[in-house]
């Protein structure tokens, strides 16, 4: 196959990726788009086996190893993708992103070893970039995975002098990068890789659990750029296009996400260093709250005409999505008008609630976006807030300077009654008191969301 034809097929694969992203922008075309992307990736992979580089012949060297490695990858990747629970999606995306970054770094290292002294400076710089960013993406993603899977604390990990250690590591990494560019050689490169891995860890450690999705998205964009850089070194238009696409779309997504949370990207990444330590807020106050029993909740629901369910992070934690569906169906059977109010950043990942509720087979027409549902709270008898907190916190509108100030919220306070299902009086991720919990029209049902919901369902059945 000529180099031209080979590149042309690569370009076609790149176009498939563009179409994939285009398709993914609306639910109607999303699945088809993803399949087009997968076809593009398949074609791109197959065609490599039919193209011999100058002075070489087919089949590829190490053909057996290559096929074997792909087989291993498939055997690991497919079951992981098939079995993962939807609540664990952020972790899985983090992990996949990490291995992608790792792969890019490895490719750059091997190509560097292979080129030896024949590499020109631009290629070396691209290699160094790929190694740094790929390694950061790899180790950073592993840490985000550990946090999200709760194999380690989800709190920001800050230790005394932490910021100096991070700055030091960064400086050392950059120094190593310069060293590689000037001196060349395998050892400097390995040291650079090690430093980058370390920096990735240190960089993600201070980020709080709920900010982690933003970091994943950012690392995703970074990995895209490393792929583009590899494309430069390997002279592959496809890799350049695909990598840049991911880089650009990842950047936009990261920004959209940060905006929807009313936060700046900088604050997300370095907030732990600049924030004043949050006092265990409100605990000292001990104001009275109205807590209720599952039966109280069931009665309230039973006599409502319209109920809006507001699911949040805690619903995902409790994996209560199926039980919520059960409750909604029961209310619908009783002739109660039920809608879900979905906040764009409820859950652990943007749009996560939509995925979770889609999994629980909640019909489309019951899901309402924030802008749709907000004007209807005035006609709502009961708003039942399940494992959500920040996304309904009026402080976002009333308390300038609080961490979520300016974030649009679901205005449940306009409903006649509010029910909160949560385990304690602890605040949500943003760590700020929610006045709504003390509102006279609020009833609290303490306990794990799934357990509480199960009780409410059976109470409601018996009414």
């Amino acid at each position, binding site marked *: 196959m000529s180099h031209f034809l080979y590149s042309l097929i690569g370009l076609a694969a790149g176009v498939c990726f*563009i179409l*994939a*992203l*285009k398709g*993914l922008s609306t*639910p109607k075309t999303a*699945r088809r788009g*993803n399949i087009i992307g997968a076809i593009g*990736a398949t074609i791109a992979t197959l065609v490599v086996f039919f193209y011999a*580089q100058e002075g070489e012949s087919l089949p590829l*060297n*190490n053909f057996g190893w290559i096929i074997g*490695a792909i087989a291993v*990858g498939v055997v690991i*990747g497919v079951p*992981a*993708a*098939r079995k*993962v629970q939807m609540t664990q*999606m952020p972790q*899985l995306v983090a992990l*996949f*992103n990490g291995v992608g970054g790792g*792969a890019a770094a*490895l*490719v750059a290292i*091997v*190509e560097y*070893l*292979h080129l030896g002294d024949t590499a020109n400076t631009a290629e070396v710089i691209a290699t160094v970039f790929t190694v740094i960013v790929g390694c950061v993406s790899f180790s950073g993603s592993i840490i985000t995975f550990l946090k999200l899977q709760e194999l380690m604390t989800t709190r920001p990990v800050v230790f005394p002098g932490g910021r100096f250690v991070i700055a030091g590591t960064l400086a050392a990494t950059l120094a190593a990068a310069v060293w590689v560019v000037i001196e060349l050689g395998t050892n400097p490169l390995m040291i650079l890789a090690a430093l980058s891995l370390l920096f990735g860890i240190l960089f993600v450690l201070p980020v709080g659990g709920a900010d982690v999705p933003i970091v*994943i998205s950012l690392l995703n964009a970074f990995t*895209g750029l490393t*792929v*583009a850089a*590899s*494309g430069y070194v390997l002279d*592959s*238009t*496809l890799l350049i*296009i*695909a*990598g*840049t*696409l*991911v880089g*650009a*779309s*990842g950047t936009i*997504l990261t920004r*959209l996400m940060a905006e*929807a949370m009313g936060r700046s990207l900088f604050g997300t990444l370095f907030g732990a260093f600049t924030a004043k330590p949050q006092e265990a807020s409100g605990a000292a106050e001990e104001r009275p709250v109205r807590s209720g029993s599952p039966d109280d909740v069931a009665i309230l629901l039973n006599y409502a005409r319209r109920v809006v369910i507001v699911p949040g992070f805690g619903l995902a934690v409790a994996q209560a999505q199926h039980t919520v*569906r059960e409750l909604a169906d029961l209310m619908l059977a009783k002739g109660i008008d039920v809608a879900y109010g979905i906040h764009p950043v409820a859950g652990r990942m*943007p*749009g996560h609630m*939509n*995925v979770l509720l889609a999994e*629980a087979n*909640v*019909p489309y027409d019951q899901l309402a*976006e924030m802008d749709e549902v907000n004007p209807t709270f005035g006609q709502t008898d009961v708003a039942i807030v399940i494992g959500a907190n920040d996304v309904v916190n009026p402080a976002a509108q009333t308390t300038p300077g609080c961490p979520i100030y300016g974030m649009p919220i679901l205005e449940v306070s306009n409903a006649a009654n509010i029910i909160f299902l949560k385990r304690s009086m602890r605040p949500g991720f943003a760590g700020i008191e929610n006045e709504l919990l003390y509102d006279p029209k609020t009833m609290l049902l303490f306990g794990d969301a799934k357990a509480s919901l199960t009780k409410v369902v059976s109470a409601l059945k018996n009414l």
Partner: protein
Amino acid sequence: MEPIAIISIFVLAVFVGFEVVSKVSSTLHTPLMSGANAIHGVILVGAIIVADHSSTNLELGLAVAAIILATINMVGGFVVTDRMLEMFKPKKGGEKK
């Protein structure tokens, strides 16, 4: 390829990426993230190329590792995105749970 060609391709691809993604509804942010993630799995192509180049055991070992990782990224990414999107297909009544 000439540097200017590469830069041009890069700049245009940035615009394409920005334009295509900037008007997405937040409903699909999760699948979009995992779909974009899957796309950078094409580094698999690069991994195969360097595996072909590899002359030492070290190189081959690293390249094989890269292939495994890239395959996990690519195949897993597309599969999991498809799984998510399957759930978004319009369902009438939503009867069978």
